[in-house]
């Protein structure tokens, strides 16, 4: 019998359309194959800067998301009690009428009564602008509970953050340390990068209590105890300083190392920079030995000298830094135990960092010109680089820990140099050219400027006397630098009417009644709570989702979104673009298939709502709608003259880049170009960007900013000292008594480590363990479980318990255990894990589901065996007995401290249902 002859060249599909994936926030380019009008195969786009042809598990499961039975069908209004998910489908006109009947009166009287918060939003430049035009101060995206510590610490310290806003120089770095990362937003690029490092024989060090994923393939694992990275990092700094292993030349050129600081504790300017007549910080000129403006031509600082003026001694930042970190407190011998590490490992890693940075220095022979006009004929590289994410930022000491890590990078001279960490446009961008926050609202008027920004000192707080202007209390004494707002406090504060009551809560793409809230049950109660006369404490809730999530049940009005393959989107430079260190890039989504339901892209719906409300900017002079839909807005909206959502193919004929009048055919140009646009940065401008004249000029040409903005890195962060002085009564405005000690303690202008708050308020013997979560690579928060393929991989989540703890409690795989925190208790299945910090338990995030949600069977494993750690985490700290509500957040930025959680474990009877169990919500779905 002969071998069958086989057609090895079958047709793959009828048509291929190139757009952008949205199975997560990584924004990879995809080729969507269509067979007789239906999506048949999705693959990575090889030309795309982000994924270069690869596609992750989630992206590959896009078909099943697109055809998910949990998709919403049409706008709906609530007809039963909240939380019982009884809805009636309505028309879009009726939906807009209802929304208008709530929002128009608010805008006429008190715009603050609208709180508009968005979750996995990739159109923040539109949503924030809409809120600004409405006039409410209460807008933010989800960054406050996500990773604002990372973003804020990066921008305040070096004018750019990790996150997806920069990246290690994968092609050149030789030693790479990754702190507290499971997946991150750069899902595919990080994997591709790690693989390049391995090919090139570079060393990868994973700092993580858990040794999975990236940490599993790392060449060395640092099994740190949660919350102690700051100590570990500063111990590395201690070693480097002690060994004289820092890049002095780099520090003096590119940082405020030489700035003179008032070192007299009695002085009212204690800790502030010495400023000259120009108002500019002073350095001591090496030649003259005199204080001069730091940026005066031809001067270099001498950080060894001190300066006495009117009895006040001024010391250089580098002096202060050295004396701080050379102290015994930061010696490896002092910190090792607390970090759960060995002294040897800390010392060896410090030595390896120094050796790689300074003995394996790399040189690129590339001419460039610095901000002072000095020409250089080569670029010196320090091939050590770092990346970090929520593992260090989702703690109440996260801001200072992230700062500590940036200080370490900078001392090694490894930021914006070959082999080090590199910014992606629109970064670098120093905090002081970012806007400041705006929150002063008035009836029928737009907000004066963007809601979110970067305060320079207490004078920039959003408070009236002692009361917060924003519902989430962002930019108050409780969390002054809350650059992303505090979405995790909105429902709780709105329910408490603190600082004031609101009327309408408008949310988009955030599963707030489940996995994205702390204390999920409490949140459900707040959303359904009624006052004495039977009205809901939070009167109106509008929510936009595309699927039957747990949150849908709690809304009064549902605006059903399309799937990501059915709508226009833009991944804009005004927001979170897809740039590379060597190129500026942005991209679009466009309807590769038409919706077969009565749904609308949320951004289009939002624009149409804005038009119904006649918000400024949404109408033409003749009163007609300015933008028909989002596509129209993307093409024609101009933020600044010539600068709009998309940077490519601008100008009437599409010939202009960055700046240029709107081009009616812009979207088609993007589609023809594969769904994205890319513009390379000139070779001479690819490194030293903050101080590189060619880069600065290029960026201005491209409309990234309007005038060159060179700056120095902030080893020493003066704004923090201003808050401290205020707390000491030496600077106005001043904080209320109860905040003073905390501000004095936490707002050190040089990074420090302090114990995460929760463990200082609970008895550590009662709660001896740390409990954390990780993102699974093959799931995206809550929204992957409706996916028939992904849920076969992660259909339930055990609690992974370290070998030590298993042995202490006689736990074996498959046993059940009860986990108890100061706030709650869960009973869940356990699995042993030895490759885990001995004081730690963890689980996969957001696998647990509410019965009846996501169009899944009520007995789906996600709902019977799966669970959330969120039930153990509270949005407030354990009471201190001072009668105040302290949020479970970083005291500087307000970042939610998810990973401060402390627990105890006890073996439980075998169960068939994980606890707590919630009644089913039988949700509307196709």
């Amino acid at each position, binding site marked *: *019998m002969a071998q069958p002859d086989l057609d090895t060249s079958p047709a793959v599909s009828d048509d291929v359309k190139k757009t952008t994936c949205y199975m997560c926030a990584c924004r990879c380019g995809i080729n969507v194959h269509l067979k007789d009008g239906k999506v048949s195969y999705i693959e990575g786009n090889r030309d795309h800067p982000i994924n270069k042809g690869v596609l992750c598990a989630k992206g590959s499961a896009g078909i099943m998301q697109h055809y998910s039975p949990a998709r919403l069908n049409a706008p709906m209004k609530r007809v039963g009690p909240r939380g019982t998910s009884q809805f009636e489908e309505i028309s879009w006109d009726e939906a807009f009428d209802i929304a208008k009947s709530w929002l128009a009166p608010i805008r006429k009287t008190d715009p603050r009564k609208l709180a508009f918060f968005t979750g996995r939003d990739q159109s923040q430049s539109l949503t924030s602008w809409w809120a600004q035009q409405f006039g409410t101060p209460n807008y933010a995206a989800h960054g406050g509970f996500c990773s604002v510590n990372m973003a804020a610490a990066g921008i305040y310290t070096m004018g750019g953050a990790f996150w997806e806003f920069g990246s290690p120089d994968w092609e050149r770095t030789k030693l790479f340390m990754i702190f507290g990362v499971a997946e991150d937003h750069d899902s595919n690029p990080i994997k591709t990068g790690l693989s390049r490092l391995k090919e090139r024989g570079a060393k990868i060090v994973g700092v993580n209590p858990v040794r999975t994923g990236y940490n599993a393939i790392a060449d060395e694992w640092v099994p740190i105890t949660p919350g102690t990275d700051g100590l570990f990092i500063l111990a590395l700094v201690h070693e480097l300083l002690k060994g004289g292993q820092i890049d002095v030349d780099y520090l003096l050129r590119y940082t405020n190392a030489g700035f003179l600081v008032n070192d007299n504790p009695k002085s009212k300017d204690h800790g502030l920079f010495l400023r000259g007549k120009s108002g500019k910080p002073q350095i001591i000129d090496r030649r003259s030995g005199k204080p001069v403006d730091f940026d005066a031509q031809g001067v270099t600082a001498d950080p060894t000298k001190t300066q006495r003026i009117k009895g006040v001694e001024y010391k250089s930042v580098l002096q202060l830094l050295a004396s701080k970190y050379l102290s015994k407190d930061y010696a490896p011998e002092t910190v090792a135990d607390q970090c759960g590490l060995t002294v040897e490992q800390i010392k060896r890693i410090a030595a390896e960092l120094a050796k790689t940075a300074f003995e394996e220095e790399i040189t690129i022979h590339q001419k460039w010109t610095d901000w002072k006009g000095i020409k250089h004929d080569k670029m010196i590289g320090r091939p050590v680089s770092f990346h970090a994410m929520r593992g260090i930022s989702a703690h109440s000491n996260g801001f200072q820990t992230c700062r500590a890590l940036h200080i370490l990078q900078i001392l090694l001279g490894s930021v914006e140099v070959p082999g080090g960490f590199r910014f992606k446009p629109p970064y670098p961008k120093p905090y002081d050219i970012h806007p400041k926050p705006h929150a002063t609202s008035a009836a029928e008027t737009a907000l004066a400027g963007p809601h979110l920004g970067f305060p320079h000192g207490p004078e920039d707080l959003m408070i009236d006397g002692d009361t917060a202007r924003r519902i989430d209390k962002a930019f108050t004494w409780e969390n002054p630098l809350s650059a992303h707002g505090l979405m995790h406090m909105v429902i709780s504060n709105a329910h408490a009417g603190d600082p004031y009551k609101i009327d309408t809560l408008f949310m988009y793409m955030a599963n707030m009644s489940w996995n994205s809230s702390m204390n999920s049950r409490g949140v459900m109660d707040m959303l359904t709570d009624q006052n004495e006369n039977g009205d809901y404490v939070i009167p109106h809730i509008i929510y936009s989702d595309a699927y039957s999530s747990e949150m849908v049940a709690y809304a009064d009005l549902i605006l059903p979104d399309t799937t990501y393959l059915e709508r226009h989107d833009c991944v804009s430079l005004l927001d979170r673009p897809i740039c590379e260190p060597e190129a500026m890039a942005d991209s679009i989504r466009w309807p590769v298939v038409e919706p077969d339901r009565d749904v609308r892209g949320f951004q289009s719906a939002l624009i149409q709502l804005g038009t119904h409300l006649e918000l400024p900017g949404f109408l033409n002079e003749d009163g007609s709608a300015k933008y028909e839909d989002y596509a129209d807005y993307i093409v024609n909206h101009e933020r600044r003259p010539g600068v709009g959502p998309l940077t490519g193919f601008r100008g009437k004929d599409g010939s202009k880049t960055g700046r240029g009048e709107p081009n009616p055919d812009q979207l088609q140009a993007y589609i023809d170009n594969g769904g994205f646009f890319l513009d390379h940065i000139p070779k001479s401008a690819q490194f030293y960007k903050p101080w590189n004249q060619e880069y600065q000029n290029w960026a201005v040409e491209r409309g990234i900013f309007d005038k060159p903005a060179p700056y120095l890195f902030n080893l020493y962060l003066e704004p923090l000292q201003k808050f401290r002085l205020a707390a000491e009564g030496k600077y106005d405005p001043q904080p209320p008594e109860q905040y003073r000690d905390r501000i004095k303690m936490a707002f050190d202008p040089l990074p420090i480590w302090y114990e995460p708050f929760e463990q200082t308020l609970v008895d550590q013997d009662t709660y001896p363990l740390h409990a954390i979560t990780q993102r699974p690579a093959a799931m995206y928060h809550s929204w992957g479980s409706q996916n028939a393929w992904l849920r*076969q*991989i992660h259909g339930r989540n055990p609690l992974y318990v370290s070998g030590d703890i298993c042995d202490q409690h006689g736990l074996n795989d498959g046993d059940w255990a009860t986990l108890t925190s100061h706030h709650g208790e869960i009973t869940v299945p356990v699995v042993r894990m030895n490759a885990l910090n001995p004081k730690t338990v963890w689980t996969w995030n957001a696998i647990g589901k509410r019965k009846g949600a996501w169009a899944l069977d009520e007995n789906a494993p996600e709902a019977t065996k799966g669970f959330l750690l969120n039930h153990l985490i509270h949005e407030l700290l354990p009471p201190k007995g001072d009668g105040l509500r302290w949020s479970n957040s970083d005291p500087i930025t307000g970042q939610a401290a998810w990973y401060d959680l402390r627990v105890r474990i006890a073996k439980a009877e075998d169960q068939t249902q994980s606890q707590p169990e919630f009644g089913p919500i039988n949700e509307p779905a196709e």
Partner: protein
Amino acid sequence: MHPAPSVIIFTVLSGIGFAMLALLGIGQPEVNGFEAIPYYFVGITLAVIGLLASVFHLKNPKNAIKAFSQFRSSWLSREGVFAVISLVQSTFVLAIKVVFGFHPLLSGGVSLIICSFTIFTTAMIYTQLKTVPRWNQWLTPFVFFLSSYTGAAIILGQVLLGFLLLLMLTVVQIAYWIIGDRAFSKRGHTIETATGLGRLGKAREFEPPHTGQNYLLNEMVYVVGRKHSIKLRTIGMLFLVGLPLPILWFFNVSFAMVVSVFCLHLVGLFICRWLFFAEAEHVVGLYYDKR
């Protein structure tokens, strides 16, 4: 391995059926003329029921006919081919007996050979599998032979033969278990050889590739049976030989008695055949760290 009723019925009944045809072929007992018909009828029916049962095991029976094509390489194919030949050939022997009323020595002998070979091919379907060490041993075919012929001898009322076969079966069945219990570890298959991770250290499964079930787990990682194996083995042996032996020894051969002994034996046989599958471990279980 998953003890599917279809394969248990198939191996047990077709085995006994073909063994009966073989014994009748060599005149144990010698029945001629119309008297032969009921004997052959029972044999052929058992064989056919068994074969039909095996078809139920197929997920795509419409292609079953193609199973005759690969006798050169495949034991399952050979089984199919020889089953058919045996049935046809035995029917031919029966025809001679009925029509001419005598016992054809030569073609009767041929029955013995091809029916035995058919039973052997059935055994080889399992014996050949390196992936199931417990099966992959020389005793497996003997287990199939003896169990088939013992049953056949009893139902055909060949008391002495049946008695001897029961004794042999006892020995072989027990030997099969003793050797089988060691087979897996003797082959040196471990999670370390399966994954090649032995060079790093001691391996265990941390996360399965899928949190739900799949075909492999259902079909080849059947752990339920092993727990109760000792109990079941004892009960199995009790019915298989424990009860039949004394009865055959002490009581005189009446038809009713033969049938009841056969039934007891058959119960034992089904239990042992169930264990044959349920106790068998497939090496793929190593990848799931399930043994």
